[in-house]
């Protein structure tokens, strides 16, 4: 499996920590509220065909927290700058959860440098009458357990010892998530009005057992983005790219290959 390197990329006044590995068309992966963390098996698998670029968002992980970071749309504009600064083109943009929300906000603004868009268990919308999971009142353990259908993944995560730096980063990530997504909770009421602007092929991947953004959230994205494809993975929670890594990589690769040119 292809390995990755870690580098610091400066865009404007903000330095971000970036994991990068593989060769091929650029694939920009935007992480969820928990942060990018480690170079995960799905990233390694994708890096066999793609140039996989995984930044820590400004305000998260090892990246700077710039003064201008007030709301989620600031990150959408940042990544438009980031894509330009790195000279990326025909980008496969993949966003998970909070990162899926950022990806949607990027795509309603400008798809000029995008080839495809993939939203995985994405935040950004609210579906009236369908409660989201409130990660902010769950205990640390509940939060991990509620991410997965297959509790073996949760057990494994709960058994891991974390370094002091990882602990500090977890607190930083939680703080930033609250800062950007507390109210309105994990969505922008205006976003749905503009999703019709997305004019690149769009894949929506959802875990059937997602307890944070239940399946109707995926269906709502599917309805609002014309021509999008919705793939619901059975026996899967909020992290399809982890819990069903092979199926996820396969789905994405077939979709991206279809839309390679």
């Amino acid at each position: 499996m292809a390995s990755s390197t870690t580098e610091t990329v400066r865009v404007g006044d903000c330095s971000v920590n970036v994991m990068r590995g593989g060769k091929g068309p650029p694939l920009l992966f935007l992480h969820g509220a928990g942060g990018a963390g480690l170079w995960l098996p799905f990233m390694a698998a994708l890096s066999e065909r793609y140039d996989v670029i995984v930044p820590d968002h400004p305000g998260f992980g090892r990246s700077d927290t710039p003064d201008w970071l007030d709301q989620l749309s600031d990150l959408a504009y940042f990544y438009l700058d980031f894509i330009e600064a790195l000279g990326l083109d025909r980008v496969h943009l993949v966003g998970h959860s909070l990162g899926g929300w950022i990806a949607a906000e990027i795509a309603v603004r400008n798809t000029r440098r995008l080839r495809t868009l993939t939203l995985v268990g994405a935040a950004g919308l609210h579906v009236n009458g369908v409660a989201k999971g409130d990660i902010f009142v769950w205990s640390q353990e509940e939060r991990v357990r509620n991410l997965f259908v297959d509790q073996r993944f949760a057990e494994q995560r709960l058994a891991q010892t974390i370094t002091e730096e990882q602990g500090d980063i977890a607190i930083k990530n939680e703080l930033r998530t609250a800062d950007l997504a507390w109210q309105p909770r994990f969505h922008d009421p205006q976003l749905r009005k503009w999703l019709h602007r997305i004019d690149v092929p769009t894949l929506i991947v959802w875990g059937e057992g997602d307890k944070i953004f239940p399946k109707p959230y995926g269906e709502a994205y599917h309805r609002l983005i014309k021509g999008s494809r919705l793939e619901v993975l059975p026996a899967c929670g909020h992290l399809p790219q982890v819990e069903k890594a092979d199926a996820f990589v396969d789905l994405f690769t077939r979709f991206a290959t279809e839309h390679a040119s």
Partner: protein
Amino acid sequence: MKFCLFHLMPYAPLDLTFDEKYPSSWMALPNSYYDPKQGHVLYNRYLDELELGDQLGFDVLCVNEHHQTAYGLMATPGVLAGALSRRTKRARIAVLGRALPLLNNPLSVAEEYAILDNITGGRLIAGFVRGIGVEYHSTGANPAKSHERFHEAHDLILQAWTRIGPFPFEGKHYQFQYVNLWPRPYQQPHPPIWIPSQGSTETIDWASHPDRKYTYLQTFSPVSQVKRFHTQYKETAERYGYEASADKLGWALPIYVSDTDESARREAKPHIEAMYNKFLRMPLEFLLPPGYTSVASMKKLRQAKASFTSDKPPDCDEFIRRGMFICGSPETVRQTLEHHQNDIGFNVLVAMMQIGSMPGELTRRSMTLLAEKVMPKLRDPIGVESPALAVG
């Protein structure tokens, strides 16, 4: 010492078995537990208790602000302060809310306080707080923007009170084209400001700043913490170049007085334990939403958590031992207060005399004993405000 009578107005008849089903009396407890008929009686009883405080010679009557909880029913403290403002004539009235970051328009606080100050002819003490963590869940206010909103709302209110309008206010969170407060506050330039806190370096730095010198109240903490944070206030003031007066330091805690130490402990026990262990209890995720404290403080609190949650709930004797509760005969209470006042050096005592489930009869007797047998002997303040040293 200044004696302030503090009330939380808890839902005293709460079914205390609620915690078998619900994690907290805050936010998660269904309001079907609240009976409006009992509520009618309670609000009037509690206002009577505060009015009795005026007659008994308390210097200040304190109301409070909490939301969506049986712990305290004063979601809109201005209403209660308004009721007191006409029925009391002597004591000052302190509103130990308002939770500025939870409110959408701080100018409504500027107005509310200014009206109270006008009605009472300058008896108002204005409190400003951030609200406790769980109230960011209850109100939807963003905990990560709490400090910014608090400071900006405070600046806006102070300007509204002290500048001639109309003038524009150009903030990050609040923008107004026309600020022009009617009425202006009765006390000039503005009412005294008190800052209740559980203790944080940031709050102490801010409250003790020479531009403000606000009275700092350490609330419901072990006495060792009270000493630590009061000392920190004095040391911070010294670094700012002035000596903090004992009048700027306050301690808020439950107090119960009865004829003997033994009867005091016996009578208070179920109520103090209900207050700390039932009404006030909540999961860490309720208490500390992300961003409510800095990353560094959150880290410390998480580390402290393990030992905290494994403790079995403290009992009445333990609360007394930790100095989170003063309880006993008038002589014991007098000695305890005198000892701590001399040891720590504060002049403001904020006494919560109705405690949790405590009924009216015990509350009134305890208040009367404190007022008649303890207060007269501890009236004299310690220390006096020194002129500012050279500020450099």
